[in-house]
């Protein structure tokens, strides 16, 4: 369970990226976070695994108060949370399986870590994760020979191999074509259903968000402006998330005209 209590986040340049965030995400939910560019979606996600520190309030993940963690504890904590990026972030010069195995690296004894030797058990787990996302046959292929969709699946497998409780995905399909994007989203759904891992996904494609997520969180200028079931999201809600209030918009336009 993830719980935000009055969370605020101000970047060092005084940019207020999040404000008064109150949120509760239960285990096994599939949540999509939508909002215009610069709204604070990535910031929200990165606070959950402590890639960013929050500046106000409390953030509790599975009973752990995230901001109280230090050094080694943070790294231990992060191992339980998977994260997926728009740019896949794989080492393209090595094989698929080696990329997946990296998720076991922090758990290896020192000599194995230096030599990069994994145990058979780890290899089985990594291959199982690759099987789950349907690219088992590519296990020993170099990553730079895979398509974008396949690479994102490798990233997903790497995260699965971590055996996480939560998967955070920051615009995982933004660089994929529509068909591949759907396949990757299907993978997310499958994993969410089969393993009960919570999935929180930042996404720009509203239709896809509505199609796949159970719950939608709309963010605008660092504040949550919609939080509810995907079916309940109206055209009006969307307008508000992406363009601000209708009246506000009109008055802005008027001002714009008088300026000219």
């Amino acid at each position: 369970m993830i719980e935000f209590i009055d969370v605020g986040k101000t970047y060092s340049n005084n940019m207020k990226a999040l404000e008064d965030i109150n949120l509760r995400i239960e285990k096994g939910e599939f949540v999509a976070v939508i909002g215009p560019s610069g709204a604070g979606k990535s910031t929200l996600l990165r606070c959950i695994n402590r890639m960013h520190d929050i500046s106000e309030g409390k953030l509790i993940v599975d009973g752990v108060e995230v901001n109280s963690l230090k050094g080694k504890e943070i790294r231990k904590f992060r191992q339980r949370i998977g994260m997926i990026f728009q740019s896949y972030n794989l080492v393209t010069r090595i094989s698929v399986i080696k990329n997946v195995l990296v998720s076991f690296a922090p758990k290896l004894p020192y000599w194995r870590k230096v030599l990069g030797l994994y145990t058979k058990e780890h290899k089985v787990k990594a291959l199982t994760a690759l099987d789950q996302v349907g690219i088992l046959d590519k296990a020993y292929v170099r990553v730079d020979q895979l398509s974008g969709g396949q690479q994102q699946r490798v990233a997903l497998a790497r995260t699965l191999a971590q055996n996480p409780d939560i998967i955070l995905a920051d615009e995982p399909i933004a660089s994929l074509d529509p068909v591949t994007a759907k396949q990757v989203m299907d993978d997310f759904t499958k994993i969410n259903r089969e393993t009960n891992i919570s999935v929180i996904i930042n996404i720009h494609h509203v239709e896809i968000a509505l199609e796949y997520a159970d719950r939608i969180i709309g963010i605008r200028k660092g504040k949550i402006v919609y939080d509810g079931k995907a079916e309940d999201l109206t055209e009006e809600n969307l307008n508000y998330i992406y363009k601000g209030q209708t009246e506000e918009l009109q008055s802005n336009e008027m001002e714009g005209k008088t300026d000219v």
Partner: protein
Amino acid sequence: MYDRIFPPAKITLPNGKIVYEKKSRAPIILVLLVLATIISVRFTNFDLNTLFKRGHEFFVIIGQMIPPKWDYLNNIWKPLLDTIKMSLLGSILGSIAAVPAAYFASSNIVSKPVAAVAKFFLSILRTLPTLVTALIATFIFGLGTLAGTVAIFLFTIAYVGKLLYEQIENANMGSFEAMESIGMGRLQAFRYAIFPQVLPNYLSTSLFSFEGNVRYAAILGYVGAGGIGLLLDESLGWRDYSSVGMILLMLIITVYLIEKVSEHFRKKLI
């Protein structure tokens, strides 16, 4: 082959699927490298002791080069200019001669056997170290800059020729065939269809080869093929290190300037 000696490991997944993992080649490569190192140490009488005991001597020599002997400059100008002239002449003539050489080495223009023979000669020319070519040239053309120029000329043909025929073989053949079909000769079709495609790269390669040639030319004097190498050899022989320092300083400045100018034009070409 390797996989037959070290069969792949079999990994069974919990769901019954079987994956074969090829054995890593890293251990055997490592063993071979270590062996090669040991053999090399034997063959070269490599001796860390000597290095630690006498290694500082090298820096003593460098220390003697600084400060360089400024008035030695007067002796340097002529051989330095000779070196530049040698590389310039060799590079220009070599680049020009590389065009027909590359033409006859391109298997998409001339017949396969002809191209193979031309390629063979080009690769032999490219393989012979410039200094060796220069040495042979001194026997044929006598001591002096001519021998050096010939050596650079030959190397440039081989180097530019190789890169050029690779370009030609990768060029778009559509327009070449079109021109041949309207009755142009092979050579003419090459001139109007292929040459414009490879021209910028050809010029850039020639410039690049000129840059490298200046460096090579600097040592050719050592075998009597003219240029500043002779002076270097003499001063080193006399252990006149401050003069050596001056020569090297001038050489570094010259090479640097030539590189910068050539880089400027190469960037424009691509």
